[in-house]
C-alpha cells in the first residue's frame, strides 16, 4: 500500500536525488529510484555492493533529509535478539526483589528495568526514525529469519509486557557486502538495489562535494588512479571513502610544498590499507603515479 510523500515536494526520484545532494550525498538514478520507491511504498530498502561504495552513507543522508533520528544496528556473527531488541537490567531487578518489603511483590518489569537495544528504540520513539541494519550479511540465518518477523509488521512481543508496535512506520535501510547470499524471503520483502562503484565523473564530483579543499584536477587524478587500483587483484580495493581520503591527504601534503607526484606517493596509505596490497603495487607504483600526476 502506497503512503504519502514523507516530506512535501518529494514527488519524484529526481527530487529525492536533489535533496540528497543538499545532504552531501550524490545518488545516481538507480539509488535515487530505489530509495524513492522504498519511502513511498513503505518497504525496507536493501542496498548491496562492495565495501566503500556508500551504502551506509545513503542511510545517513536519508535520515538527514527526512529530519529523523538514525538508529543503527551493527550486525555481527552470533548477534541475537538480546543484542538487537532489549535486555532486562538483571542486577537492578535482583536488588528490587531484595528491597521489597515482606508481603509486597516488586514490579520488576517496569520500564526503568528495560535496557533498550536499537530495534526496541525504534518502536518506542514517538516520531518515526530511520533504522539502519548494517552489514546484515555478517549475521547468521537465524537472525535473518528473526528480522523477517520484525520487518513484516514492526512489532515485537516482550513476554512480560505484551506486544509493542511502532506508532509510525520507521524507514528501514539494510546494507550487505555480499559476503554471503541473503535469504530470498528477505530480498523479496525489500526494495533492492546493487550499488556499483560510481562512474569517474560522479566519483570526482563526490570527492569535491565531500571536501571543498580538493581541486578538480586532483579529484580527477585520484579517481583515475583508484580506477586502475580497482582492476588489480587487491585484498582491499579502495572504495569511495578511500578516494576522498587520498585526495585530501595529497592536497594537504602539496600545501606543505611537496610536488604532486611525491604528494600522491606519500599519501598512498590513505587508499591502500593492506601491506600485501602495497607490496603488490610497489613495482607498479611509479607508472601509476606518473600516469595520474601528468
Amino acid at each position, binding site marked *: 500500500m*502506497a503512503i504519502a510523500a514523507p516530506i512535501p515536494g518529494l514527488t*519524484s*526520484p529526481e527530487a529525492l536525488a536533489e535533496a540528497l545532494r543538499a545532504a552531501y550525498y550524490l545518488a545516481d*538514478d*538507480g539509488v535515487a*529510484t*530505489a530509495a*524513492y*520507491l*522504498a519511502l*513511498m*511504498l513503505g*518497504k525496507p530498502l*536493501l542496498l*548491496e555492493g*562492495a*565495501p566503500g561504495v556508500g551504502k551506509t552513507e545513503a542511510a545517513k543522508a536519508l535520515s538527514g533529509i527526512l529530519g529523523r533520528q538514525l538508529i543503527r544496528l551493527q550486525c*555481527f*556473527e*552470533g*548477534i*541475537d535478539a538480546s543484542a538487537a531488541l532489549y535486555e*532486562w537490567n*538483571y*542486577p537492578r*531487578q*535482583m536488588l528490587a*526483589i*531484595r528491597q*521489597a518489603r515482606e508481603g509486597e511483590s*516488586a514490579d*520488576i518489569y517496569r520500564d526503568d528495568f528495560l535496557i533498550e537495544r536499537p530495534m526496541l528504540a525504534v518502536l518506542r520513539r514517538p516520531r518515526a526514525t530511520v533504522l539502519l541494519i548494517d552489514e546484515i550479511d555478517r549475521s547468521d540465518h537465524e537472525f535473518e529469519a528473526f528480522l523477517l518477523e520484525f520487518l513484516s509488521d514492526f512489532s515485537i512481543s516482550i513476554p512480560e509486557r505484551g506486544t509493542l508496535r511502532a506508532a509510525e512506520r520507521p524507514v528501514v535501510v539494510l546494507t550487505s*557486502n*555480499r*559476503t554471503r*547470499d541473503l535469504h*530470498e524471503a528477505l*530480498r*523479496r*520483502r*525489500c*526494495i*533492492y*538495489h*546493487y550499488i556499483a562503484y560510481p562512474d569517474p565523473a560522479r566519483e570526482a564530483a563526490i570527492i569535491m562535494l565531500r571536501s571543498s579543499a580538493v581541486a578538480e584536477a586532483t579529484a580527477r587524478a585520484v579517481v583515475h588512479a583508484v580506477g586502475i587500483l*580497482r*582492476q588489480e*587483484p*587487491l*585484498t*582491499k*580495493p579502495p572504495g569511495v571513502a578511500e578516494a576522498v581520503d587520498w585526495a585530501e591527504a595529497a592536497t594537504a601534503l602539496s600545501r606543505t610544498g611537496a610536488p604532486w607526484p611525491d604528494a600522491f606517493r606519500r599519501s598512498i596509505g590513505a587508499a591502500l590499507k593492506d601491506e*600485501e596490497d602495497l607490496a603488490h603495487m610497489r613495482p607498479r607504483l611509479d607508472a601509476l603515479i606518473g600516469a595520474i600526476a601528468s
Partner: protein
Amino acid sequence: MTARLPAASRPLVAFPTLLRQNGFAVAPEQTIAFLEAVRLLGPRSIEHMRQAAHATLAPHPHQFARFDALFDLHFLGGYGEPDEADDWQPDEETQIQEDGGEREILIGETVNETGREAIEAEALAVRQLRPGDDGAVLARLARDLPTALPRRRGYRFRMARRGRGIDLARSLKAAIRTDGEVMTLKRRRRATRARPVLMLIDVSGSMKSRSDANLALAHTLVQSAPRAEVFTFGTRLTRVTRVLKLKNRAQALALASGLVADWDGGTRIGDALQAFLAVPRFAGYARGAVVVVLSDGLERGDPTAMIAAMRRLAARAFRIDWLSPLAADPDYRPETDAMAAIRPLLATLGNGASTAAVARHLVTLAGGRAA
C-alpha cells in the same frame, strides 16, 4: 483477478510471469510492488520501468544480464543476448566463473597464454560424473563430520554447569521462585561454533582418476558440515557450492559436471588461487576456515604465483591441509619448486588417493580418532 485489471497494466503483470517461466523466483507481493512502483514513477521512460523492475523484483546481481534481456524481449520486443561486457562482475571485477552465471571467462588471461601452451592448458571438456561406490564411506563421513570439525568460541552463550560466567537471567528467574533469595547461581559460557571448511578441488588432467570421487565427497561435506564452500580449479576457478546444496547426490553431481568447464585440462593452481583471493567475497570464505586442497600440486604455470597466493591464503585460514594422491606412496617427497616452497605453510601434506583416506583425514581434523 487479472480480468479486472486495466488493459494497460496487463503487460506489467505478464512480465513477472515471464520471469517465473525463466527460472526467476518472483512472489505475488513483488508483482504488486512492481505495479505500484511503475504507477509512482510515471512512468516517463522505459528506463524508469526497468529501474522499478530491478528494485522491486530484485534479481540477483549475477542474473542482471538475463533479467535485462527478458525485460527487453517483453517490453521492447527485441531479445538482446546477454552481453559479456555488460554482465555483472563479481564484486571487484575478477574474471572467474560462479555457479548460476552464464559467463565462462578464463582466469589469469595474460599468464601463460601463448601458442600451444595455451591450447594445452585450456582443453575444455564436459563430462558425466560417476557417483562411484564409496557410499558406505560417505555415509559414515556424513554422520561423523558435524562433531569432528575444529571449533572456535562464538558470541552466543549457552547454559553450563560450572564456569566463571554467571547467567543473570536464569539466576533471577530462580530467585523469583524463592522470594528473591538466591539459592544457586546459574552459570553460562560461550557457545562454540564449528569452523567453516573451504575445499578446493583440482579437476585437471593429472587428477582425472580422483575428480568424480572428490566431487561426491564435497557433496557430502556441503550436506553435513554447518558451513562449507567448494571450488574447483584447473584452468578456471568455479564455485560449485550452490549446486552441491541439492540433497540428491546424483542430481547435484550432474549439475556440477555441467558447471565445471575445465575437466581434465591443465593446472594453474597459482592463477586459480589468486583469482579466488582477488574477490573479497570469496577470500572471506577462507577467514578462520579449515582449507582442504585436493590436488597433486603439479603446477604448470609460474610457481611464484602459487607460492604468493598460498602465503596470502595461509595468513587468513585457520589451517591448510593439502591432500595429494601422490602422498599415498610413503616415499613421496614434495620436490617440485612450488610444493617445496609451500610445505611449511601446510598443517598437513597427506594422503588424498582415495575417498576413504580423505574422509579419514576430515574426521580427525579436531584431533579425534578415525572411526
